[in-house]
């Protein structure tokens, strides 16, 4: 079973050379720490920055330089600043190669719910609806089950949707799964020490298992 860092580490393997990547809040933010040295990647922050660097040192903190999670950050050489309209323009024009975000629920059709729990949480969708409606490739980073032990991989989302038929891949503490175009979660990899049986039990939506399922490889 993976911890959050493990999930981030596994997702980092999905990033290819010269990718422009948008990272959501939470586990996705951790992915930046595990990019292989030989991979060029450029992080976009949808509040208006390409070329986001690490957190600043104490004396380099600038209130005018934050990421979409409102954290103080830095810019790498070659960074560029733009306004919110152009930022979502490049998102909608599919210039971002990969979007990694968290979810409360994912359906076997690739629908995603991550912005609202009626009567309980109303923070708003922020840029998530734009990202999921436009991204070429979306990977969801999340726990396989919620705090009540209920599966978050469902036949159909019960929470208000953020977007439909958009999630391509899911990485949880238990497994890597692809969402099949015709519907269904195809099990690709098991987390170290996790059995297929465990994943079956934790998955309420249609799970597709073909042949032997390898364990995730980390190096």
């Amino acid at each position: 079973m993976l911890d959050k860092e493990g999930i981030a580490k596994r997702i980092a393997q999905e990033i290819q050379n010269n990718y422009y990547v948008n990272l959501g809040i939470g586990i996705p933010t951790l992915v930046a720490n595990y990019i292989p040295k030989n991979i060029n990647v450029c992080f976009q922050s949808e509040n208006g920055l390409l070329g986001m660097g690490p957190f600043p040192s104490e004396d380099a903190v600038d209130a005018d330089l934050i990421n979409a999670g409102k954290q103080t950050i830095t810019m790498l050489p070659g960074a560029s600043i733009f306004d919110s309209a152009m930022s979502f323009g490049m998102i909608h024009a599919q210039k971002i190669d990969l979007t990694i975000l968290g979810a409360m629920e994912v359906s076997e059709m690739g629908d995603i719910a991550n912005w609202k729990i009626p009567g309980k949480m109303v923070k708003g969708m922020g840029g998530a609806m734009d990202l999921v409606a436009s991204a070429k490739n979306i990977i969801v980073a999340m726990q396989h089950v919620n705090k009540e032990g209920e599966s978050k991989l469902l036949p159909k989302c019960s929470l208000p949707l953020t977007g439909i038929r958009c999630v391509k891949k899911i990485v949880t503490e238990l497994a890597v799964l692809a969402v099949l175009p015709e519907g269904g979660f195809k099990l690709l990899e098991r987390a170290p020490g996790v059995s297929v049986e465990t994943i079956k039990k934790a998955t309420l939506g249609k799970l597709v298992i073909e042949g032997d399922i390898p364990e995730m490889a980390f190096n």
Partner: protein
Amino acid sequence: MMNKKVKDAESAIFDIKDGDTLMLGGFGLCGIPENCISALVKMGVKNLTCISNNAGVDDFGIGLMLQQKQVKKMIASYVGENAEFERQLLTGELDVELIPQGTLAFRCMAAGYGMPAIYTPAGVGTEVAIGKEIRNFNGKDYLLEMAFNASFAIVKAWKGDTEGNLIYKATARNFNAAMAMAGKITIAEVEELVEPGGLDPNEIHTPGIYVHRIFQGSNYEKRIEKKTITK
């Protein structure tokens, strides 16, 4: 040429009245028009509709206007980090319309570009699409979203000149640039106000034609919401 300089925030917002619709620039607490917000609180104008990506925090930004119950309706994309906001929302004191962040930006831009409406894929298949026109282009569905029509846009820039030209700093540009274009009256507060010729024409983000009043603000707190540093 033009001189759009006014003395201070009070003189810039003097004609904002109860029930007006205001756009307020900023993302979180980054790049918010601090001086104008203070002046609006002091002025006590009520029943405002505020269009802003966020609603500030409890004791800063638009949160200060919420405390004074000056806001009737909030159009935003993300309103976490604000307990008073949540309270007013749950009690029904506050009317809230949550829209995708890109939709917010594009509805501003549409207003500034004279486009009556734009098409966006954001929100298709979700509750955001309810009651909206859906149209398919090249096999993909889009929602028709209308340009904003706000009486005032209030923005914060880094540098400005008396012609109303604006330059923003780093990610404090965010919604300020699109909103500056979108107000029927646009008010800009800047950290540094210079004479015409003091800014390079090639580096201007918002041309002065979009700005009606400008002043040099003071005492910027620039509060940081989530200070994160490398250990």
